[in-house]
Structures are given as C-alpha cells and as structure tokens.
C-alpha cells in the first residue's frame, strides 16, 4: 500500500540502524508515547535494531489502556439497561471491569454494538428513535474531532436519543506528569504523530524547553520510528532539546485547524483520571455545558461512581516507563489476553499485549517454544 510498504524497507531500516550506531556514545532512554508505535516497535523488532545504548520505554499512549476502571463500570451499567443501544470501538469490549466486561453484558442480552466510526452510532440513533443510543467516546486528540462531529451533527439534526460516555485524554499533560515524576528515566520523547496531525506541535515547545528533553514528532512505520529515534539521539548527543517533526508528510506545525475548532466547540479541558496513573490535572476532554444533553453520565445519572484499581496489575508503572511488561509477576501467567487483569493486556496497542503476542517465547519461564500470534 502506498505510503506504508516503502516505510517497511529492510535495507533502509538497517541504514538507519548503522547511522544510529555511529552517533551513539552513551546510554539514552527514550519513550515512545503512542501505543500504535509500541505495537510497531515490538512487531517489527525495531528495538532489536537499536544499538545497545539506546533503550525504548513504552508510554501511556493507548486510550483503551488508560480508561479508568470506574468509567468501564459506568459503561457496563449503562450498556445493561434495556432501552440502551451501547456503541463502542471493538477494543473496549474486553477491558475488564470489576467482575465482568462489556462483552459479558452483550452475551447476557445487552444490545452492545461495535462500530467503525462515531457517525455510525448517530445513524443508529436516527434509525431507532425509541431507543437510547450511547457511544463510548474513548481516545486521544486524534479521535476527538470525530467524536465532536458526532455530537455536533446530532445537535444539528435535532437527534435527542444520542449521547456520549466521554473518556477523552490529552497527551501533553501526561508527558509532563511523567517528566515531573522524581523517578523518571525518560530523556527524550517520540511524540505521537497522529495526535499531532490534529493538534500540531506548538504545545510541546514549552515542555521541551522546561524539562530540557528533545521531542520528535514521529510516524508509525518502522522507518519513521527509526528516523525519530535517530533525530532524538542526535539531539541528545549534541546537547540540544528541541521539538522536531519527523512526520512532516502528515503533520503541520499548527495541526488541523478546522478539526481543532470543532473540538473546542463541543469539548472543554477537564481533569481526568488515568488508569494505573491517577488523576492528572487538565488532562482530558469533557463536553461543554451547552452539550450537557449529550452527556451519558448525566443522562443515566452515573456521575459519582468512584472505584479503585486492582492491586496486582503494574500497568501504571509500565505506562510511566518505569517497568517493562515482562517484569510484571502476572505477565503471561495469571494475566493473558484471554484473561486480562489490566487493560494493557487487552488492546492490541497495550504494551503487555504487544509483548505477549510477539515476545512471549523469549520470556516463557518453561522455555517451551510457543507459536507467535493468536
């Protein structure tokens, strides 16, 4: 496929690996923020091409993984109501709640549907005026314009049986939370390319300056990631800490302005709880008060549920770059994609699931050779 295949070229990848080896003189720890990048890194073995001094740790960039338990419980409670058609991206269905997931609600007769786009949920609402259609609006800045448009179109068309359960998170505040933690090992960031297609990258400039870390906006294919790592290490070796754009084929400095305008029309910045990390100020999006009628938490009166996370799951440490999945005692034993304890084992972009799928052989305590993949 054009704009994909050429960025998987082995020879160019090795070229980047060689160039990287030439410039690396010390140990550097970089974090890739986005779960899509984590998935590509582990799948294509990008980390195995890096010189031993360059380590990649995996960031909090999987919206499925950081959705807190209490929101999953709210989703389950709403989805179980007989009048509700609950629509969601497929990834959310298997995220464990306290004692069941959305898939269990579906098997028990709940009307839970997987949709490709939030606009599909609006169409379902139009077709079923007698039912309440709720869309589980999960995502980063990349997805916010789509969810904003769903609400905006519903309002324009006068559709009143549609609402969003909003769990939107923002990337820059999470990066700051990681950098300001005393234990952080992160010396440079690969910023999430698709988040930046929407938001641009001016937000990162004060972060790079304040914490003296290079931030390279990076794409998702193996060559993009290798070039991003190269640019980041080059800055570190030269003592620079700037924001650079590796993914210029899709990212402009000020991002996508029509998309930002509609996001601002529908959403506002709010504090948000991140699963395994805790509450981060100004790190999420909630609906603007003028769109209260589209807020499922208000409509179904589930605002004040509070719940703690299960103790055994260390996904919070993994998403802050302090641990790797195979350092979790539950990894591949008690916790597997079939029986996940944490969301990082569910989503294909979760670090635990990526390690389980592509790296299990290396970590299998019995040393049994097991097949890759599902």
């Amino acid at each position: 496929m054009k704009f994909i295949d050429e960025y998987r070229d082995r020879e160019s990848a090795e070229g980047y690996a060689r160039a990287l080896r030439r410039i690396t003189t010390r140990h550097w720890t970089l974090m890739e923020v986005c779960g899509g990048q984590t998935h590509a890194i582990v799948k294509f073995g990008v980390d195995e091409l890096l010189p031993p001094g360059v380590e990649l740790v995996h960031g909090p960039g999987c919206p499925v993984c950081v959705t807190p338990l209490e929101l999953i419980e709210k989703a389950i409670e709403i989805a179980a109501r007989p009048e509700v058609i609950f629509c969601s991206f497929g990834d959310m269905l298997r995220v464990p709640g306290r004692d069941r997931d959305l898939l269990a609600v579906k098997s028990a007769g709940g009307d839970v549907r997987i949709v490709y786009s939030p606009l599909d949920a609006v169409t379902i609402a139009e077709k079923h005026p007698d039912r309440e259609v709720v869309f589980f609006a999960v995502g980063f800045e990349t997805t916010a314009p789509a969810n904003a448009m769903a609400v905006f179109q519903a309002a324009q068309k006068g559709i009143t049986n549609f609402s969003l359960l909003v769990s939107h998170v923002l990337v820059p505040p999470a990066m700051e939370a990681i950098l300001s933690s005393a234990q952080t090992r992160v010396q440079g960031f690969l910023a999430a390319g698709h988040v930046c297609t929407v938001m641009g990258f001016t937000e990162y400039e004060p972060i790079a300056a304040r914490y003296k870390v290079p931030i390279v906006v990076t794409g998702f294919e193996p060559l993009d990631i290798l070039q991003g790592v190269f640019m980041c290490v080059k800055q570190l070796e030269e003592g620079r800490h700037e924001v650079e754009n590796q993914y210029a084929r899709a990212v402009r400095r000020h991002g996508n302005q029509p998309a930002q305008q509609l996001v601002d029309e529908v959403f506002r910045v709010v504090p948000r709880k991140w699963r395994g990390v805790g509450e981060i100020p100004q790190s999420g999006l909630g609906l603007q008060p003028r769109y209260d009628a589209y807020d499922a938490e208000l409509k179904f009166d589930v605002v004040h549920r509070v719940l703690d996370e299960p103790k055994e799951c260390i996904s919070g440490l993994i998403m802050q770059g302090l641990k790797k999945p195979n350092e979790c005692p539950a990894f591949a034993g008690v916790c597997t994609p079939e029986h996940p304890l944490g969301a990082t084992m569910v989503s294909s972009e979760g670090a635990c699931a990526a390690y389980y799928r592509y790296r299990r052989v290396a970590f299998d305590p019995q040393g049994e050779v097991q097949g890759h993949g599902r």
Partner: protein
Amino acid sequence: MCLAVPGRIVTIEGDDPILRAGIVDFSGVTKRVNLSYVPDAKIGDFVLVHVGFAISTVDEEEAAKVFSYLREMGDLAELVDQGEPKP
C-alpha cells in the same frame, strides 16, 4: 487506537462543509469517509483516515524525505569516517 491509514480520494460529494464526504480508496478497498476536516483536499489526493474521518492530507514531497534524510546521514557518516580514521 490512533491508527490512521493513508488512502486516495476517489469522489467528493456534499456542499455543506460539515457533511462533506467522499469515497477513499485504500489499495483496492474503498470506504466512505467524512472529508470536512480536509476542506482543501481534491480528488486524487492522499489523506490519512481515522475512524471514518480524513484528519490530514499526505504531502508527497515530504513523504520522500525519510529516504533522502537517510542518504544524507549515510553520506555524512562516511565523510566523518574517512576524516577520522580509527587507530
């Protein structure tokens, strides 16, 4: 979750900027995509599509730079290697 796939715009319809949509071709698989966030995109342009929305146009000139950057780095590295022979 933030997966976005590049595809080529085949048709564009709708005068209302909010409802602007079209068919996008992903190497043979076609899908209807909302185009309101890429108001300048034309038929034949490549766009990045995420959950049914085009969120950016792909700049073909920039797209090639990943490879030329590598060449530059390769050339530079060789020059440096020649200039500073290791003992």
